[in-house]
């Protein structure tokens, strides 16, 4: 079953650069990794594929010495190793380039390369450091400008600095966490060229990615993780994107149809409540994070949004709730143009919002539970009248919300951060459902909840739907999405790839759309 594969052309007896045997890593109440075996050979680019929370990052943190595994062993070049710290791993030749660069923006490229490097000359003038950087840059084939400040560089250039930092420290195994997420297509091509050159020198690369096309293009072999365990390792040449997608997301999904409405439930309204017309958003760096999204939200309908996190879901939620201004396109509320991104205006129009990072952005941790529960209704009677704030009425509201959320609160005056994270979440959800008379935008509402609480949360969504509210349900859990949604939209790279009816949706298709396959290609593939 698990015999180490030895691709052709390698001298017999060559040990893998990295071997993992039965790695297990546990956090309180969570199994992050269990029984993970992995072989990475010299001269190989190895892709690591998996959904959010599949355990990819934890595994790589174990390999780079950030975490210590509770079970299993790490074998480098045939010798068992333990890493007490990331420095140990770097000394052993393992370098990691994180998704979010760890560079000092105010420093120059040369300074960043030399920062914390024990081989840096003791007395280093800028000229010396820049010359050394130039030499390193040419040696490894990653062109950089040594005297440029990091904050003036593009994402691609910053990434090259990160890679050089790692390579200068004699890394033989380069681990890259979603390296192309911030790159333009041209920069991606350059990166791949450089990675192939690095591989040609007998080094190894582990690349974490969600993008199936890129995995197919760059990797020699691919290992898929799911739920903290390795599902398998495949030669990329034997794979195709749809098979990878299906393996990646294809846990045993129990399809339960929660679409059937009880008697008396509101039907799906023919007229949309909210419409997006060709809406695009650019971030501060000018990168288009939401691209030409058109969407209709109908009352009495749940629209599921699937996709790997970070593909524009956050921007979509923020545009739908008035937190973010669109760069182009139109937003219509009840047929009328909304020309201002103003969250208060959206809330007053009956748009509720359970944000993704609700504990951070929807609550004031140091204020009382009462003050937090009043956040959405403080401006209207009975709490807000004539510019006053009625603390008694706010207390009554907090009581109501806590009762509905079934959270037991001993003292409403205590800071809300004293409650458990789960209870804070439930209170936010209930507070938002209260004001969501027209639309509820729920971003990952089930995240971090236990099974019972997830069922309750999904029940909230279907209840709202039955009351005629338009529900947008963003999740990374396909099972939940397929079970409650009427339609499912898939996001990739800020685009809404396709919106399909959930009832007949095919998991493999959704998986491929999540991986960036064009809907047209999928249809063509199916027709063959």
């Amino acid at each position, binding site marked *: 079953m698990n015999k180490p594969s030895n691709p052709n052309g390698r001298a017999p007896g060559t040990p893998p650069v990295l071997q993992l045997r039965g790695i297990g890593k546990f956090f309180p109440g969570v199994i992050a990794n269990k029984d993970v075996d992995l072989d990475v050979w010299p001269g190989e680019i190895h892709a690591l594929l998996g959904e959010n929370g599949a355990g990819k990052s934890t595994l790589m943190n174990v390999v780079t010495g950030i975490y210590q595994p509770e079970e299993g062993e790490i074998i480098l070049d045939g010798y068992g190793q333990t890493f007490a710290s990331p420095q140990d791993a770097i000394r052993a030749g393992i370098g990691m380039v994180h998704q979010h660069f760890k560079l000092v923006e105010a420093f120059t490229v040369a300074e960043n390369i030399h920062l914390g490097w024990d081989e840096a000359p003791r007395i280093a003038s800028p000229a010396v450091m820049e010359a050394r950087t130039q030499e390193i840059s040419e040696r490894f084939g990653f062109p950089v400008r040594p005297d440029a400040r990091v904050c003036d560089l593009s994402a691609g250039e910053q990434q090259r600095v990160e890679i050089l930092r790692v390579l200068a420290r004699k890394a033989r195994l380069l681990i890259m966490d979603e390296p192309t997420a911030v790159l333009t297509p041209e920069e991606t091509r350059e990166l791949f060229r450089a990675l192939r050159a690095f591989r040609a020198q007998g080094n190894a690369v582990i690349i974490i990615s969600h993008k199936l096309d890129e995995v197919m293009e760059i990797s020699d072999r691919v290992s898929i993780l799911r739920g903290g365990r390795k599902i398998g390792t495949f030669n990329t040449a034997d794979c195709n994107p749809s098979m990878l997608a299906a393996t990646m997301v294809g846990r045993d999904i129990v399809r339960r149809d929660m679409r059937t409405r009880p008697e008396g439930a509101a039907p799906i309204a023919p007229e949309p409540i909210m419409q997006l017309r060709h809406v695009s958003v650019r971030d501060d760096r000018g990168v288009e994070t939401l691209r030409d999204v058109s969407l209709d939200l109908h009352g009495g309908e749940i629209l599921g949004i699937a996709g790997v996190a970070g593909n524009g879901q956050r921007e979509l939620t923020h545009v739908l709730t008035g937190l973010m201004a669109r760069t182009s396109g139109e937003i219509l509320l009840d047929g009328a143009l909304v020309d201002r991104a103003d969250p208060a205006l959206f809330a007053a129009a009956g748009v509720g919002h359970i944000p993704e990072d609700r504990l951070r952005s929807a609550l*004031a941790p140091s*204020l009382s539970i009462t*003050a937090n529960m009043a956040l959405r209704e403080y401006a209207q009677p009975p709490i807000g009248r004539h510019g006053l704030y009625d603390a008694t009425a706010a207390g009554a509201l907090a009581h109501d919300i806590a009762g509905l959320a079934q959270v037991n609160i001993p003292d409403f005056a205590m800071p809300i951060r004293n409650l458990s994270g789960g209870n804070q979440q439930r209170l936010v959800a209930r507070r938002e459902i209260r004001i969501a008379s027209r639309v509820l935008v729920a971003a990952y509402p089930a995240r971090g909840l236990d099974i019972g609480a997830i069922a309750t949360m999904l029940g909230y969504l279907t209840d709202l739907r039955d009351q005629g509210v338009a529900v947008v349900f963003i999740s990374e859990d396909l099972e939940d999405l397929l079970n409650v949604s009427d339609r499912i939209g898939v996001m990739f790279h800020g685009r809404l790839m396709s919106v399909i009816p959930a009832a007949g949706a095919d998991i493999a298709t959704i998986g491929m759309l999540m991986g960036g396959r064009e809907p047209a290609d999928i249809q063509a593939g199916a027709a063959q």
Partner: protein
Amino acid sequence: MATRAFQRLPTAPAGRILMLRLVAIILSLFIIACVLALSGHSPLMLAELIIHSTLGSRFGLEDLALFMCPLLLTGAAVTVCGTIGLWNIGAEGQFYAGAIAATGVALGVHGSALTVLPLMTIAGIVGGMAWITVPTLARAYAGVNEIITTLLLNFIASLLTYYLTTGPWRDRISGAQVSTQRISVSIPEMWGIVHWGFPVAIVIVIGLALVLSRTRWGYEIRIGGANPEAARYAGIPVRLRIISVMLLSGGLAGLAGMFEVAGTVHRLQGGMANNFGYLGIVVAVLARGSCLNVIPAALLMALILDSGIVMQTQQLSASVILAITGLILFMIAIGDELAHYRPLARTTPQGTAAGSKVS
């Protein structure tokens, strides 16, 4: 294996804080007494003298009230600003600006107190606001750190006061140094030398406490201070709130300057702010973000200041007073931090393990 015997609570109960502060003050008084005794003073005699000339006599109480009046307002200025998460370090400068503006009105407008005093009040508030305008706009629109801008403006205001009191506004009648002439109107006295500014300051502090807890504006300020991101999420115009709070803060400090000119000193003097602006920060820290707590905090600060003056009459240098102030505040800070800790119950596994070893 070392196990922790204490647990840190995220919020300290008010009762524990109060208790530990009392302990801190008593402990610092004990340390001060020891040091004074070692340096040849009689702590008991000094203590008796201090108590007599502060809480123990009518004159002492009057002095206390006069010290408290500006401290209440500057303390409130810093506290209000702190509610939205910003530090107004410039109450000293706004105090001067208020004092200058009020003096300008008093020197320039001749009329009955009934017309001049309200004008001086407005001028004082507007002066304080004007002094914080640039830091406010820089903070709200460019994200410039308000701590630095407000602090630096203090020196300008202080030097401007010296310029005016030695230059164009210098006292040409009695020839007093670094001072304007005595202004013709004054806030009426209420009790001995205590003017009506004192009760007004108390009412203002109580009013602010009510505004912060009972108005929509106050609620938005509190949310904005506790989590700006949540405020944005709720559609609160955080920028406008920052502007209004900072202007209010500057206005309060400016009013303190006007009260000092029209109620206590009756003229503009170089150095007259007497560190009231900086001590307002201390008062705000002692008050832990609550406007009502500003009242006892200002009382404590006034007591320390007054005791300092008494001690100076006993040949103790001014720096000793500063050291004593520092010691008391330092001990209180330790007390506040300790209030977060509570001993772990003795039913931990550690306890049972020790028990089983014995048996």
